[in-house]
Structure formats: C-alpha cells, structure tokens
C-alpha cells in the first residue's frame, strides 16, 4: 500500500518539476495538452481497460464538457468554477441514462452504439449554431482564475491542469485497487461469474460509464478555459479513436499506462513535424510496431525491453 503512495508522490513531484526544465515556450503548451489527454485516457481506461467495455464516443463527452462550460461562461457570464462541476454532473447524468440501454450491448455492437452517440453529439455541436456558433466555433471563453490569479499563461495552466490531472491519477489508482476496481475487472474477465459473486454487473457498467463521462467532461471544461475557444472539429470521431489508441498503446488496465499513452501520442506528432509530409507515415508505422512488439502497452513493454537490454548487456560483458 505505502509503496503505491510513494510511487505516486514521486510521479507527482516529477510532473511538478517539469516546468523548471522547460520554462515557457511552445513545448509548455503541448505539455498542458498532455495533462488533459492523460485525464481523458484514464477516464476511457477505467471503462475499457478495467470494465472491458468499449467506447468510440468519448470525444463527445469531452466536447459536451467543453461546450457546456464555454456557453455558460462566454454567453451567460457564469463563474467558470460553477460551470465546470455543473457541466460534469450533467454529462455524468446523461451518460448514466444513456448507459442503461447502450451497455446491454457487447463487443462490436457496443462499439457501434457509442460511435453513433459520439457522432450525434458532434452533429449537435455543428447544427445548434445559435448556441454553439456551429462549425466556426465559440470564442471569448474566459480563463480560469483564483482571486486575482488568472491562468492565462502556459506555465500557470500547466500547474492548474496537472494539479487536477494528478488528482485524477490518484482517484483512478485508488479505484483500481479497491473493491469496485476488482468488481470491474471481474466483470471484464467473466460477467457471468461476477454476477454469481453478487456483483450487479449491469449497474456497475453504467456507473463506470457515467464516471468516465464525468471525468471526460471535466477535461473538456479545462480544455475550453485553457484554449478560450472551442470548435466541433476537436471533438469528432477521429479524436475518439485517438483516445482509444492512447489507452491501448499505453496499456489497458493501467493508470500510469494511460499517462504514458497520452504523453506519447501527444508529443510524437510534435516531434515528427520535422519530417514534413512523411510525419503521418512514420507516426502510423511507429504505432504499428508498438502494438506488434508491446502488446501489453508501453507500461508493460518498456520494463520488458529494459530487462532484455540489461540481460544482453550482461551477457556481452561476461
């Protein structure tokens, strides 16, 4: 137990020290996104990696959070700190209601249903022009602030977003190593046996779907207040797939894996930009290689790789 806490504290300190190494600059802005993506990847991983239920519509929940916060603050002048939890609870409640019929489905059918859900939400963003500004987006969303401290720079946002992301990591770790986390994994491995053990699988799946949507919504609100502008393009099907890729590449059923996946998939395109037109090919190729050679995700693949390299090194010296 204590070792897990120490690991988390070390992780948190490391994260909070990063800005000292790269003060300011464009990279800082990218690292803010790594934080938001980590939250989203954890949210999806709770659903996919732990409970074993797929969602191809999580960009929709992310977008709902962003737009609810955006509209409430920019159009109606609400306090962002009030809009964010309201958005989160609404999105969670919506997911809870939709979850009951949808999560009866399994496998490909569930993928189709959540895909449809994501697309419907995307269409709503585009078509309700009076409210969302339609395809041209919604601007004038205020930055978050505490008293006179306004989170308007990348470094400030870094600390804001990562504080909330670290809280999400901690909650995720707690949940994963608890009675509920075990029940989720039990449902994943054998739903029929989980039910015989008294787990109300149906309710549990809906609950975790709602929690996952709620966390995604918070990430969306933070995104809106950091960017001060949102448009539907950020919340389409492509982004849902990208989130799924983060979770799988990082490692299914691992909270730290979600962090690794989110980090890699956010940073990689930035570094590959140097390759100009070939970046997307290299990106795709790298992902394929990783799935082939690290089927357990980065979180299991990297330690394996280190062990292999050490062994090789040891043999070479001998």
């Amino acid at each position: 137990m204590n070792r897990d806490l120490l690991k988390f504290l070390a992780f948190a300190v490391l994260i909070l020290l990063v800005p000292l190494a790269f003060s300011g600059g464009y990279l800082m802005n990218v690292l803010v996104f790594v934080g938001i993506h980590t939250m989203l990847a954890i949210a999806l991983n709770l659903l996919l990696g732990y409970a074993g239920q797929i969602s191809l519509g999580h960009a929709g929940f992310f977008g709902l959070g962003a737009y609810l916060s955006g509209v409430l603050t920019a159009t109606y002048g609400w306090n962002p700190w009030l809009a964010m939890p309201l958005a989160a609870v609404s999105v969670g409640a919506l997911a809870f209601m939709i979850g009951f019929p949808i999560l009866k489905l399994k496998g490909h059918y569930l993928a189709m249903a959540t895909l449809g859900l994501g697309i419907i939400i995307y269409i709503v963003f585009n078509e309700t022009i009076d409210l969302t500004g339609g395809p041209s987006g919604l601007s004038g969303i205020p930055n978050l602030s505490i008293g006179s401290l306004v989170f308007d720079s990348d470094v400030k946002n870094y600390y804001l977003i990562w504080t909330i992301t670290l809280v999400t990591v901690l909650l995720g770790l707690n949940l994963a190593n608890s009675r509920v986390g075990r029940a989720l994994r039990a449902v994943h491995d054998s739903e029929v046996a989980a039910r015989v053990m008294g787990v109300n699988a149906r309710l549990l799946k809906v609950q975790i779907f709602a929690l996952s949507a709620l966390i995604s919504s918070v990430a969306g609100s933070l995104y809106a207040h950091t960017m001060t502008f949102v448009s539907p393009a950020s919340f389409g099907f492509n982004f849902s797939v990208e989130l799924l890729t983060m979770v799988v590449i990082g490692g299914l059923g691992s909270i730290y894996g979600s962090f690794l996946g989110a980090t890699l998939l956010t940073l990689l395109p930035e570094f590959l930009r140097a390759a100009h037109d070939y970046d997307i090919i290299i990106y795709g190729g790298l992902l394929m290689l990783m799935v082939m050679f690290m089927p357990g995700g980065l979180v299991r693949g990297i330690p394996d790789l280190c062990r292999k390299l050490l062994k090789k090194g040891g043999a070479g010296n001998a």
Partner: protein
Amino acid sequence: MLEVCGITQIFGGVTALEDVSFAISKGDITGVIGPNGAGKTTLFNIVTGIYSQTAGRVLLNNSDVSGLPSEKLTRLGLVRTFQNIELFGGMTVLENVMVGLHTRSSSGLLACSLRMPWSRSEESRIREGALKWMEFTGITDLADVTAGNLPFGKGRLLEIARALAVEPEIILMDEPAAGLNSQETMELARLIQRIRDLGITVVLVEHDMELVMDICDRIVVLTLGRKLAEGTPREIQDNHEVIAAYLGDDE
C-alpha cells in the same frame, strides 16, 4: 431449504423437464444424477436464475425466487460453481477470492475513489476473509498466481474458495469432479464434506457415481426430463428403475 416445485421447461417443441419436484433439506449433501440429456444442467440453470422455466416454482427458504438474476440469489445465500470453471483469469488467486466478498462489503464508487477510512478498513477485512477461505481449500501458497495460469484442479479449488467467500447458505456445484483425476476427486470429496460440516447445504450435479454414492446424504435421479427416483444412496443403488435407466432394460 431449497424446494423445486413442478418445474417444466420446454425449448421450442422439446420438453427438457417435465413436472420435476423435490426438496433439499438444510445441512444435507444432495446429488442430482442422471444419464446424459436427463435435464440436470437445465434444472441447474433454472435454479440459479440463468433460464426462466416454462412452469413451476423455485423456493428458497420458503420464498419464491423463480427467475431472480444470479446476483440477487447470491445475496439470498445461494451460490454456484461452473462445470467449466469460470475464473477471473486476469486477476490473482487472492483477488479472485476477494471478489467473493463483494456482497459482504459495501464501499461504493465514491468511497473507493477517495479511499475513505472505512473503505480502507473494509479492504483489510476483505483480504483477511479471502485468506481464510484460501486456507480452507488449501490454495494459500498460490495467492499471487494469476488465475488464468492455474492448472485445472487448482482452478476448481479456487472457484470453490471464491464461492465460499460469499458465505452462502447453500452452494450448488455443477459437475465439480469433471476434469479431475482420482486423487483430486478424493480430495474434493473431503472438501465437500468439510463444507457441509460448516453448516452449508451442498447440491451436486455430478456424473461421477462413486463420488455421489460416497458423500451424498440424498440423491435425486432424473431421466428424460422426469424425476425417476429419490432417496439415500443405498435406496438408489437398489432401485431397479434406476439401474434400468443407466444400464438399459433387459427386454
């Protein structure tokens, strides 16, 4: 304790069970036997809430539990094991048994996420309970093994430990000796007797005649969807109809 009243099950045009009734008394080990296709598994699936019967009722402690889903039956004290063991393959042996204590604990999503003090103390209570049942079935040394990597016989013991962790009043086992060698079957027989000694009622659906005759207090024989006989092992062994059903008629 458990009563089956006039159960009839019709699949399409096939009558799998026809007006089957019997009662299981508390503290007994009851065996349900019968040749292939007799309807044993169908009956088992009706009692455990997987199928809903065409007619008839299932009574648990005198209340009608027909058609209740398995998670409700578990809370009422009825738990089952599976013929082709259903483990949580990606979890360790200890974690598997800990899931068995799900109904004996209550921390929800929020309390678990926040690691509230009570959910932490509950967690250690769950761990202790799980260790107790692992010791009872003799799998303590396998605590950290991933369940998916267990040999079949150990998997069976794990499944029983997990079911016992529910602290049921009655445990239904679907062919617990299937896939076990004779040594393992003997150990299983002893384990089942020890479970009965705890005051837990045991129902076995089983092919292994020796096991059934050895440890059962009462036996129900099904054939072709009907109850053929009911009685002590001695009575069943001497019953001509039963012998005829198993070995075929002279005519």
